[in-house]
């Protein structure tokens, strides 16, 4: 009975989605807000990557709320998993190749992650993508040596400071009499590393926050006791 109702639900959902697809014309969509943003973003925000201009400039407040969702997920994950008991068993160290690879990859991933964060306003990438790479830089060594633990106090300190600085930059704009999270500082030359005002600073905060949150969450997942 449950199977039948599930199958009926799937059929209905399929028809619904198919009906949505019927109305969509592939590759020939009328320009909406995007074209208007593309026309003015270079002058208004000064970021060569317009996706960054949208994420941090036009809808920076939404990005702050999305960071809050991620923060809630990470906090809830930590709450659910809890602390492992002292002397709890863990998986043995992995083989030589993964251990050596983890040591080799750590500096490489750090550099790539920071590069992607710092160039988020110029090239594809940014705080979210770079933050995930930073998180993997700190997580791969844990996969290679499951016994090592991460300093969760330090991780949550970085996370909190990054989140606070994001909000602080937003509040600084209000001191100036502008709206919350309005891009500040000089826009600079389009395409230069030091351009787009306060957007790179915001992306550094986002990158550190995403990186520390994901690294902490993954480390907690791997630190939990092995199920017998």
């Amino acid at each position, binding site marked *: 009975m449950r199977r039948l109702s599930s199958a009926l639900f799937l059929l209905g959902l399929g028809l619904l989605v198919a009906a949505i697809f019927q109305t969509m014309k592939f590759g020939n969509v009328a320009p909406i807000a995007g074209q208007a943003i593309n026309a003015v973003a270079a002058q208004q925000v000064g970021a060569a*990557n*317009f*996706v960054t201009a949208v994420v941090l400039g036009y809808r920076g407040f939404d990005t702050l709320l999305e960071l809050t969702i991620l923060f809630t997920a990470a906090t809830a994950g930590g709450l659910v998993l809890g602390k492992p008991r002292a002397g709890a068993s863990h998986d043995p160290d992995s083989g030589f190749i993964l251990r050596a690879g983890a040591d080799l990859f750590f500096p490489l991933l750090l550099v790539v992650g920071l590069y992607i964060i710092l160039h988020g306003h110029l090239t594809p990438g940014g705080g979210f993508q770079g933050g995930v790479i930073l998180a993997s830089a700190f997580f791969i060594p844990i996969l290679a040596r499951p016994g090592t633990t991460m300093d969760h106090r330090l991780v949550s300190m970085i996370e909190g400071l990054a989140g606070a600085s994001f909000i602080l930059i937003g509040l600084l704009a209000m001191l100036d009499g502008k709206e919350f999270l309005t891009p500040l500082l000089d826009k600079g030359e389009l395409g230069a590393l030091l351009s787009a005002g306060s957007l790179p600073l915001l992306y550094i905060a986002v990158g550190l926050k995403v990186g520390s949150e994901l690294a902490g969450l993954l480390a907690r997942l791997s630190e939990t006791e092995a199920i017998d």
Partner: protein
Amino acid sequence: MDTGLILYTAAFGLILIGSAGIVLSTHLVRIIFGIALLEAGANLLLLLATFREGSPAPIIVGGRVPATMADPVPQALVLTAIVIGVGILALALSLALRVQRAYGTLDIREVRQRLEQDIVDEAGIELPSSSDAPQAMVSRQEGQA
């Protein structure tokens, strides 16, 4: 076959397979994978909805501004949606881990039964059931006799 049809079929398939995984499977980890697939399908659909033929990425390289560029708004939405998806996935998996540790199984039918039994035991009441259920009818007839 044209590209549009392939891409739409991919988005449609991902959404449908993900939903099927959520409603049909009884294993918690499979349900979580279903959520991940559904999420990927939704992201693809969001990008396809505003795709314009022959429009490059909305990034200015070397000062040249193309005549038409892709819509940056859905790209920004999907960008954050992917990261949040990873967070949700990690949270769901950690919850599944707790369930496995508490009940020793990831089958939702078994977990639901054990959960209800636990609640009933804790509250000191009987398992809720319909008055027409076979057991209840027997006890009622006994009461009348």
